[in-house]
């Protein structure tokens, strides 16, 4: 429960270690001015700013950015400090706007270090101001409070600092602006300047894939997201007792600016919607997309989805255990009733049996009610999260694909499909895995486990499996920057030509599908050479010295109908690629029926185990990392007859051609 402040409102701070997040939509710089009990800032060493970002108890970012984070430890602040003014200013050294009226209203939140949002405040109503005091943390009778300020200065940073009582405010403002400008990100990062970990050629070695059995546990996300089942947040603030004065008047207003008492919610010009309003007592908070920890919206959504995944796994575990317990108790009580010879006949026995059944029903109903309550909340969350997902996480029917543009940066994760449990069929959890892929993928074209009569025949299954592979390949192509990802296909007998049409028609493949034993051998040899060269270059620290003909883009190799067309040598090469490829940007996507490779015996077991098995039809073979339920996986396919896949791939090819 977050308290949303209006200008002048204050709120107690129950925690001493805080994180203040600012999102402004455009790069801004942030600082903190430390004042004594009269609010006076005694010198430039009392100001934390991009030039000297760390002061005792306060740390501010070194450069200007649209998303900023300040950390404050109230317990470490010097005794003399009674007031911390968090200020923002627009950087002067850029072509960016110089008045807050021209940019989205900055949104600030105060969080405890565990990510719980305590207070938020949107700075609305700014116009010609170029610097603003956003929030004020202050000590009152030994306790710290926060106040929403929004005190702007048309004179910019010098005027703001002078108003704090600093004598050399002009000098300090120049220092701050210079320091912030040094750290400003360049407007368009050149592809070669990408962080090393993201480019295929210099990717650091990954941990080896864990061997897995039939029910494949999914790796838990690396930084575990906050989950909705965490202990309840801070109690709802006493909104009604709004007291803007609190013993001392707000700082003097500059001429022309007026105190804006309108509620920020009514002016929806924040970069993204502010969190849900404080709910009424006992009502769960209205879910919000991105309601999790993370440095970016993308990471927050990733953590939120994994949080929903965990919550659904756990609430289902609670339900299943409770029903199991109710059943076993019923059995015991019935046994007990039977064991008593006096009660075996007659009304006493009937009554005991009836009572036992009633107790079972009551507990099972209670368990169902608890599950339904949680499912309702998770469904509501899914309803706001799904539409907010970026292309890499979105279903193909998400409107975000209609506005598709080739991205400038690769995403941090990819949606492989949907997961659900039988108790909560309509609720689908996106299966997100981190990129670059740490292990290869295997789409099983073998006989489906489903026992209904409508199981397609083998040829149809192979086609569906390759279709699922094509949808994944198209998604990978689409979410990487132009030219940063290449897809190659081995289709030894040409059997997959129909399913491959979306890729071949658009010209999205790096080369036509390899056919025949010779084609297979040649393509595998090329990729093996690439893996070897990149490995050598990475070990020698000489990524620049790769031969010009080595494609440094990440590679996805789709192998259809494995092991047809493979001789022993090719199989060995493929196993080598599966082991060594992921660390240097070569990824496998096998479409295969394991039975076809039975002739190889246990030789290929390590290969199968190293791949993440997916299915073309819904199948419950994936286990979550917390409780180990069997989740039903469904591939994410483009709508039948839709044009979206074709349009997206055309855009990918267009961007790639333009780049060359």
């Amino acid at each position: 429960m977050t308290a949303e402040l209006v200008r002048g409102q204050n709120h107690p701070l129950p925690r001493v270690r805080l994180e203040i997040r600012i999102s402004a939509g455009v790069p801004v710089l942030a600082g903190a001015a430390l004042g004594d009990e009269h609010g006076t800032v005694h010198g430039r060493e009392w100001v934390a700013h991009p030039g000297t970002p760390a002061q005792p108890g306060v740390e501010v970012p070194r450069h200007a950015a649209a998303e900023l984070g300040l950390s404050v430890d109230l317990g470490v602040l010097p005794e003399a400090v009674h007031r911390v003014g968090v200020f923002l200013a627009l950087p002067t050294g850029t072509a960016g706007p110089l008045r807050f009226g021209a940019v989205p209203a900055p949104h600030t939140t105060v969080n405890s270090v565990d990510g719980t949002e305590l207070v938020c405040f949107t700075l609305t109503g700014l116009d010609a101001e170029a610097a603003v005091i956003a929030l004020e943390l202050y000590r009152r009778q030994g306790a710290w409070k926060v106040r929403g300020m929004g005190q702007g200065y048309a004179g910019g940073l010098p005027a703001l600092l002078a108003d704090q009582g600093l004598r050399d405010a002009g000098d300090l403002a120049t220092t701050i602006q210079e320091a912030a400008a040094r750290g400003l990100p360049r407007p368009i990062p050149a592809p070669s300047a990408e962080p090393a970990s993201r480019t295929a050629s210099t990717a650091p070695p990954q941990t080896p894939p864990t061997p897995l059995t039939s029910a494949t546990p999914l790796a838990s996300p690396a930084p575990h997201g906050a989950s909705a089942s965490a202990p309840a947040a801070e109690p709802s603030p006493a909104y009604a007792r709004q007291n803007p004065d609190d013993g001392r008047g707000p700082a003097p207003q500059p001429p022309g600016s007026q105190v804006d008492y309108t509620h920020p919610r009514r002016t929806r010009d924040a970069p993204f919607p502010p969190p849900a309003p404080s709910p009424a007592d006992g009502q769960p908070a209205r879910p919000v997309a991105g309601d999790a920890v993370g440095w970016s919206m993308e990471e927050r959504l990733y953590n939120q989805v994994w949080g929903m995944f965990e919550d659904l796994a756990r609430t289902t575990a609670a339900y299943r255990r409770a029903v199991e317990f109710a059943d076993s108790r019923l059995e015991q009580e019935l046994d007990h009733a039977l064991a008593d010879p006096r009660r075996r006949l007659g009304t006493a026995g009937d009554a005991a049996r009836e009572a036992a059944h009633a107790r079972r029903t009551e507990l099972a109903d209670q368990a169902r009610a608890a599950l339904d309550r949680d499912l309702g909340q998770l469904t509501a969350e899914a309803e706001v999260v799904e539409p907010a997902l970026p292309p890499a996480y979105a279903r193909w029917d998400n409107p975000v694909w209609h506005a598709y543009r080739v991205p400038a940066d690769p995403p941090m994760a990819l949606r492989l499909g949907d997961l659900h449990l039988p108790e909560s069929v309509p609720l689908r959890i996106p299966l997100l895995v981190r990129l670059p892929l740490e292990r290869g993928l295997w789409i099983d074209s073998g006989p489906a486990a489903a026992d209904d009569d409508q199981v397609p025949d083998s040829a149809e299954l192979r086609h569906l499996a390759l279709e699922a592979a094509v949808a994944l390949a198209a998604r990978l192509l689409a979410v990487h920057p132009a030219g940063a990802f290449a897809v190659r296909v081995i289709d030894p007998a040409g059997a997959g030509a129909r399913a491959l049409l979306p890729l071949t028609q658009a010209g999205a493949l790096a080369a036509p599908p390899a056919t025949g034993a010779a084609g297979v051998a040649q393509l595998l040899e090329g990729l093996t050479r690439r893996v070897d060269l990149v490995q050598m270059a990475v070990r020698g620290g000489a990524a620049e010295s790769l031969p010009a003909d080595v494609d440094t883009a990440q590679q996805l190799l789709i192998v259809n109908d494995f092991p047809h067309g493979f001789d022993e040598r090719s199989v060995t090469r493929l196993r080598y690629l599966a082991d060594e490829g992921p660390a240097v940007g070569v990824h496998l996507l096998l479409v295969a029926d394991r039975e076809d490779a039975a002739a190889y015996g246990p030789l290929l077991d390590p290969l199968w185990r190293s791949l993440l098995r997916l299915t073309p039809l819904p199948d419950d073979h994936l286990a979550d990392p917390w409780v180990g339920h069997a989740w039903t996986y469904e591939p994410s396919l483009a709508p039948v007859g839709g044009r979206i896949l074709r349009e997206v791939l055309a855009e990918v090819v267009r961007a790639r051609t333009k780049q060359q």
Partner: protein
Amino acid sequence: MSVNLSKGQAISLEKKDGASLTAVRMGLGWQAAKRRGLFGSRTREIDLDASAVLFAGGKPEDVVFFRHLVSDDGSVRHTGDNLVGGVGQGGDDEAILVDLQRVPVHIDQIVFTVNSFTGQTFQEVQNAFCRLVDETTGQELARYTLAGGGEYTAQIMAKVHRAGSGWTMTAIGAPANGRTFQDLMPTILPHL
């Protein structure tokens, strides 16, 4: 204004305004006893472990301890193993968070235990306490001091159990011996 519990005393976990608690934290804190002798400055490490056992109808259903930090249903969470204790004097060295609203309907008792993983008895531990905190406000509801530790390596601290629509906490304070919660099961069962 927290209640100091004595052995066997029960308190109801209902707030004064009648609303029941939603989240509580069972905190455990201790300090190693000061050693006399030649190398008195050398501190000996004592590893106490807090565990919570979830019971349904007298049978253990799930347990939260340092190797299983979250109950499968997600309602009980351990903040992590502390191997030495006594870092913050008077603060919690290990804590177990219970979201009472999310405890599965069939779980009727949660028993909190502490045991000495390194084998020292409570005679070598000072200022050991267990306390129950309202996690939503940070207010301490009850505190139970492990006074007179004696020649024991474990203690059944307290239990929270369903009473009507709400929950009640009962201090147990029964001594026991054992390295992990499994060894304590025979001692726990009479207190259910």
